[in-house]
């Protein structure tokens, strides 16, 4: 490390950045942390104040605004949290100006932004864990395809903050006509939306095969050559308990004990890391630049291929990164700094192996279907309640209104992170209590998932993973790494996954 106290500039204002700020602040190098954010996050502001840094309010997707801040603050390291600033080329701009930046250039962040690019890259380079897909430029054509394809997932070709993905499951043939007619309507609507909103996209919509299995996230830190994997974390995308209801940005997470979760084996974890490593190499060879930053794989353990890639993040996952608060032993600053300055080789991450961590997101009722209902409610916090339970509160979708009061932005409001050395259930119970530490002054209800960390849920994951394992192990043992379809009149079609 450099001799004087290191100065870090953090870009972003969500719960993920609050977690990153705390992780950085906990590093033995005692960095000074400043932040540039779109909306006022009191948690990040508190970290900045405590470490002697400061906060700036600016549009973080504007490279010029962020550059101005960076030039004023003159940090040793810039850490870009969210994806949109990366897509907007913040990292490129700052690197050009000589800053040390953690976060990929926009050509590389495309791996998250452009889902067609991500899928096609996997096929071009034979990266394992890939899915069949078809991409469309024409809404009409997409609609026609969805009508005949069946059992698909429809995704906007452009990553749009966890929205727009819809699954048209046809677990049973009797539902197929129904599912397909809805899918074909939906796919053209999505295509039109992307067309209207984004001018920078080659394709509009992606239709990919639907798979079943247990989801988990593997986050890595890389300097483009070396890859350091973080422990496996599981996110919970459904808004309501028992994995019911609309998709969200993630209603909570579990992690621990140690590197993987009870339902993912060490080998599956290694294979997942391998998928990310190969992706980093593939990006290097196609784009001609090293990927510097976090690259995460949202994975699913499927019966076809075992670890299968559902989506890349060109950043840390939210709420996944929050779990790290109680797992990390190494210096987070050293990790990010060595990646950003391309000195990651030989780095060894250490974590605590006796901790179970549960993260629960809290959102104002109305999220995610009608954010207007969830927006503008005055927020109250009693941090004591949370801290007495040994937990941490992370601010997410909050902002200061014109009178200086904290109000909800309509997104996930906050996260409660609780560790336990006894197990997930214990951590979960504490999180349930700690949630009393945040409420809305006008009485508007808050929602969260009481089931995260419960035994019932864990048992379901274990059972699902076991079934997937039986199936993919058989495929591998028999060397069946291709899928064959026979279409009358068209003949045999082979999809090679080798």
């Amino acid at each position, binding site marked *: 490390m450099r001799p004087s106290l290191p100065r870090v500039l953090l870009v972003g204002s969500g719960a993920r950045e609050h977690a990153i700020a705390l992780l950085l602040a906990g590093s033995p190098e005692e960095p000074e942390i400043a932040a540039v954010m779109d909306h006022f996050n009191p948690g990040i502001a508190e970290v900045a104040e405590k470490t002697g840094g400061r906060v700036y309010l600016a549009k973080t997707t504007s490279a010029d605004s962020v550059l101005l801040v960076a030039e004023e603050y003159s940090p040793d390291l810039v850490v870009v949290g969210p994806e949109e600033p990366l897509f907007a080329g913040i990292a490129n701009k700052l690197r050009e100006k000589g800053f040390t930046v953690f976060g990929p250039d926009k050509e590389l962040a495309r791996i998250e932004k452009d889902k067609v690019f991500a899928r096609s890259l996997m096929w071009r380079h034979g990266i394992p864990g890939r899915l069949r897909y078809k991409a469309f430029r024409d809404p009409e054509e997409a609609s026609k395809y969805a009508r005949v394809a069946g059992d698909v997932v429809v995704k906007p070709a452009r990553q749009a903050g966890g929205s727009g993905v*819809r699954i048209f499951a046809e677990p049973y043939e009797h539902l197929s006509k129904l599912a397909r007619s809805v899918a074909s309507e939906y796919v053209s609507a999505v295509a039109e939306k992307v067309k209207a909103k984004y001018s920078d996209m080659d394709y509009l919509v992606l239709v990919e095969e639907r798979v079943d299995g247990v989801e988990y996230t593997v986050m890595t830190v890389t300097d483009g050559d070396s890859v350091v994997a973080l422990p496996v974390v599981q996110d919970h995308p459904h808004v*309501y308990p028992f994995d019911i209801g*609309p998709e969200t940005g993630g209603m909570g997470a579990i992690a621990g004990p140690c590197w993987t979760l009870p339902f993912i084996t060490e080998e599956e974890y290694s294979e997942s890391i391998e998928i990310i490593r190969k992706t980093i190499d593939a990006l290097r060879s196609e784009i001609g630049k090293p990927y510097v930053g976090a690259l995460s794989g949202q994975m699913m353990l499927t019966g076809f291929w075992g670890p299968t890639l559902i989506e890349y993040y060109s950043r840390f996952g939210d709420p996944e990164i929050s779990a790290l608060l109680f797992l990390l032993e190494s210096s987070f600053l050293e990790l990010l700094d060595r990646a950003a300055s391309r000195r990651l080789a030989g780095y060894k991450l250490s974590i605590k192996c006796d901790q179970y961590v549960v993260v629960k997101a809290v959102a104002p009722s109305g999220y995610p279907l009608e954010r207007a*209902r969830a927006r503008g409610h005055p927020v109250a916090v009693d941090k004591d309640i949370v801290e007495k339970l040994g937990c941490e509160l992370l601010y997410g979708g909050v902002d200061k209104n014109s009178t200086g009061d904290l109000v909800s932005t309509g997104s996930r409001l906050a996260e409660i992170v609780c560790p336990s050395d006894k197990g997930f259930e214990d951590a979960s119970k504490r999180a349930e209590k700690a949630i009393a530490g945040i409420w809305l002054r006008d009485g508007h209800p808050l929602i969260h998932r009481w089931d995260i960390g419960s035994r*019932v849920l864990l048992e379901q994951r274990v059972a699902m993973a076991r079934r997937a394992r039986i199936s993919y192990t058989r495929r591998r043992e028999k060397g069946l790494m291709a899928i064959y379809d026979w279409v009358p009149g068209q003949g045999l079609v082979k999809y090679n996954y080798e």
Partner: protein
Amino acid sequence: MGLLLTYFYEIDQDAGKYAYYGVMGLRHRGYRVVYAVLGPNGFEIGEANPWSEWGLPSGYAVIAGISPTARLATSRHNGRRVVAIIDGPCPVEKLAETMAKNDLRDVAEELVSGDEYRWCAAIALRSDGAFIAGRGKESRRPLSIGGYGFEALYAATETAPIILMGGSPRYDLGGGEAVYGDRYSLDRVHVPGRRRTSLFEYVYLARPDSLVDGVSVYAFRREMGRQLALIHDADVDVVVGVPETAIPYAIGYAEAKHVRLEQGFVSTLGRVRTALAPVSLEERLMMLSLKLNPVPGIFEDKSIAIVDDSVVTGLTLKTVIQRLRRLHGAREVHVAVSSPRIISRCRFGVQLVDESSLIARYLSDEDVSRVLDADSLVWLPLREAVRFLREHGVEPCTECMR
């Protein structure tokens, strides 16, 4: 004798099309379905015979119940309308009224803790999109919750309907437990209660491809077949199940006795549960030969074990046994009934048998055997069934059985 909730989170989705398959997955429980479909323009309420050509109107949420034990009531208050369906002898009108007037949480609390609802399961929908699904604190009726992708919440008396609607079962409500919510929330109330699920569900009502309170109905039946064989002091060459719903028991029976299992009969009617059909005794007997036509050749000069999954009057069995003796050359016919003796009508309405027609209520085993002209007779020992379910966390209600 069955409830269903299909709730889509996007109001432009057509829950009716999915609920149709859910009801199909419950129709083995009866011949009439009452339903209410909620769409942007309010409720449509109706009734149908799911064994005929039928369909549901469009809407984003559906509740349905299999009558006659499931009853529907509506209520209106300050422009809010509620439709409730209760399965069992509990005041459905009152539930509808309470839900029209009160906060959802209070309604849920009343449902799970109120004495008047203690035996029942209930599902209700309100015109503002609020729903509730719960079990009274000693509910004899199971209720499972499931999800369909990011699209819908499902609830049903057993899990097969959830799966037929494309969903995954996720949680089995306990006694004194309810979930309630709307598009913006999903909450739960739970008071100390017990899974007093009726043994009749496992023995007879549920489909073998369902889980009831998390217990595989098929596994239960196969194991009970094994238990029957172990206590049945009879030398047999061949095992058959009558009707085909008894086959899981017959499989267990044959396995434990190390004898061959045969398909003894072919039905011309499909999987109708004749014991539940709203028909007279005469009509029932007339259906019998259509339902149970023996396969020629497999009974000749053999000692047969017939595994039957329900004996009410014994007339069905008697007729079958006679036929096997007169026309098919059976040497001996031993009877293993895969349910305990049913001796009374269920006061919770899980079964609606006419007490005067219950042979086990009036006759000793010896006399039943004489009436049937069977060479031996055993009933499923109640304690084995109870033991099995207790091990799985269910404390079954066996009030009508012995």
